[in-house]
């Protein structure tokens, strides 16, 4: 009847197959079609791929594809409680940081926030022009009443990028010191970077409740931590071998070498990584509005859902402005580091 009957008959497995028969509980589409008289003629041109479903038709003992998806789901749900038990307390501080930062950024009045941001921009870039530019952009956002949302987005980026640097730099340093660790870590980083952001959200939604900030916090950090790790590792490995040898010849300890030579000389690369990390946090915080991350992304999402073209476009412009600000400021800081140590 089915295309692949001959395989099981040929292998003498018919009895094993029939043992798997569970009666006529579930009926396949092909069976129904056959009953209604539409008989598909099998030729070499419509030979189906020997998929699970096709083999199941020939032999009831073979599992169907839907059993596989079901199995994965069951497996995940079974592991979920154990995973939660471990991950929940570990990641709880992330929720507190995010809540705290959101609260602080929202509570701070704009006339306090503006000078603080201006001071930060000036401190990191030492450029008055950039301060003026940033102020104009922020003032524009505030003027069109997007200030609160912009601050929420900034608060989330602030926390996530900071944590990325806090964890990413040490991981990068560890990788630069051990070829084995590097070989083990790179595939993980490759995977984190190539997975489309939506794909990570799925397991995370099942693990944590959607109302908790750490859900999007983790998604953003996983996505954005990759460049800072990679570039820290690369930066330290690229430090001039002659300078390292000199450091050794003067009897520096590993610690003196790390903090006095390797990190300072790798700083341009590390800063380039931080710049990319911040930009990727921004990209992800917009997507994370799907899982209740507040900020400009919520407005974009509203624009899409309700087809409110104006709302979507204006908030989109807001995101672009934020992106430009963050990029310019980190690049300016990077240029300063570069200028200080050209050869």
């Amino acid at each position, binding site marked *: 009847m089915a295309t692949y009957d001959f395989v099981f008959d040929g292998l003498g497995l018919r009895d094993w197959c029939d043992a798997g028969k569970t009666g006529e509980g579930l009926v396949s589409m092909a069976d129904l079609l056959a009953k209604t008289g539409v008989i598909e003629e099998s030729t070499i041109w419509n030979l189906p791929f020997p998929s699970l479903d096709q083999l199941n038709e020939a032999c009831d003992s073979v599992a169907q594809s839907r059993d596989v998806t079901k199995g994965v789901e069951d497996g995940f749900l079974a592991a979920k409680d154990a995973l939660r038990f471990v991950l929940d307390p570990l990641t709880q501080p992330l929720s507190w940081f995010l809540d705290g930062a959101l609260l602080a950024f929202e509570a701070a009045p704009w006339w306090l926030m503006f000078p603080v941001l201006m001071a930060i921009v000036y401190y990191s870039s030492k450029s008055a022009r950039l301060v003026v530019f940033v102020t104009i952009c922020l003032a524009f956002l505030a003027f069109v009443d997007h200030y609160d949302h912009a601050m929420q987005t900034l608060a989330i980026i602030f926390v996530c990028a900071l944590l990325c640097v806090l964890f990413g730099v040490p991981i990068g340093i560890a990788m630069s010191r051990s070829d084995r660790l590097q070989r083990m870590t790179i595939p993980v980083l490759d995977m984190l970077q190539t997975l489309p952001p939506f794909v990570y959200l799925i397991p995370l939604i099942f693990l944590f409740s959607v109302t908790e900030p750490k859900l999007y916090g983790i998604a953003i950090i996983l996505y954005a931590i990759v460049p800072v790790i990679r570039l820290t590792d690369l930066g330290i490995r690229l430090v001039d071998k002659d300078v390292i040898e000199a450091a050794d010849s003067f*009897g520096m300890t590993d610690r003196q070498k790390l903090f006095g030579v390797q990190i300072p*000389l790798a700083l341009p690369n590390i800063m380039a990584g931080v710049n990319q990390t911040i930009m990727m946090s921004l990209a992800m915080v917009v997507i994370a509005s799907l899982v209740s991350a507040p900020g400009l992304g919520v407005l974009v999402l509203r624009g899409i859902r309700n087809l409110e073209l104006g709302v979507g476009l204006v908030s989109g412009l807001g995101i672009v402005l934020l992106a430009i600000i963050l990029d310019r400021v980190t690049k300016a800081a990077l240029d300063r580091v570069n200028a200080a140590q050209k*050869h």
Partner: protein
Amino acid sequence: MAGNIKISIRNLYKIFGVDPKAALEHVLSGTSKADLLKEHRHVLGLKDINVDMREGQITVIMGLSGSGKSTLIRHLNRLIEPTAGEVWVDGEEVLAYDEARLRKLRREVMSMVFQKFALLPHRTVAENSGTTLKVRGVAKRIYLGEASKWLDRVGLHGYGDHYPHQLSGGMQQRVGIARALTSNSPIMLMDEAFSALDPLIRTDMQDLLLELQTELRKTIVFITHDLDEALKLADRLVILKDGYVVQQGEPQHILLNPNDPYIEDFVSDINRARVLRVRSIMIPLNDGGIPPGAHGEVSFDDTLESIIARSGGDTSHTYVVMRDGMAVGKLEMTSLVKALVPRVASESGARNY
């Protein structure tokens, strides 16, 4: 001039590769560097090195590129670990040192100057120069003071607040030297320290080093591939080829008695009149009597070039050689002319390898 033996290298072997110990057996049983590479995929870095370096002297290690000079000097402070052999410094076996003792040696006994300067680009000249004290935990105020003293000494007064990239190559290497001097270590290792500099600047730096040396009397191990530089600086010359010592000794002696075509090739190209000195070719006076018919007195340390100028090219002259006001020998112009001709002229095939 002959101080105590400060550094002593004994039967040192270095083989690069996955299993140096096994390869060492082949070398000990006579496999050559080329065969070791071809048949066993190991590089013979150093082979049976025995060198003594005296306190207060400049020992120059010379050889073509790839002859193992850098490998050798890095064994002294164990930047490279040997495959076999011993390195003694001040009567102690350096290879027996544990990590802490080795670090102390690197911090207090030996300092190094590098071909590519190897300065820290993010630190000022003064901070760079003070690095060798900073690693010992010396307070910033003190090491900056020491650093600026030595920067003045190498001719960089007022450059303390500059960054290395603002200086020329010659000035950067002066910082490298100041950094080594700031550590106040008795031994200085210099790996092709002047090779990256322009010829004129290189001459300046050589003069600077000699001037510092007359005052400081450090034990200096200086590496170069340039014979002129070697002859100018060396109290003692060690010539390396393919990882082994071809000849070592007093530079003038090597120049007059090269024991290998490799060295003859090296020495055939230099201006011998400028390098050789009267003391190397004079005939000593045994009875103390002044030879009759001398045309004048010359100094023990005069170069042959200055004698030729004095004699006006007349090969029949004879001179009395004076040292510290005493007549110690006689110099005949005919032997001077003979000394000017290399035993093997450069055209006659010393370049065949």
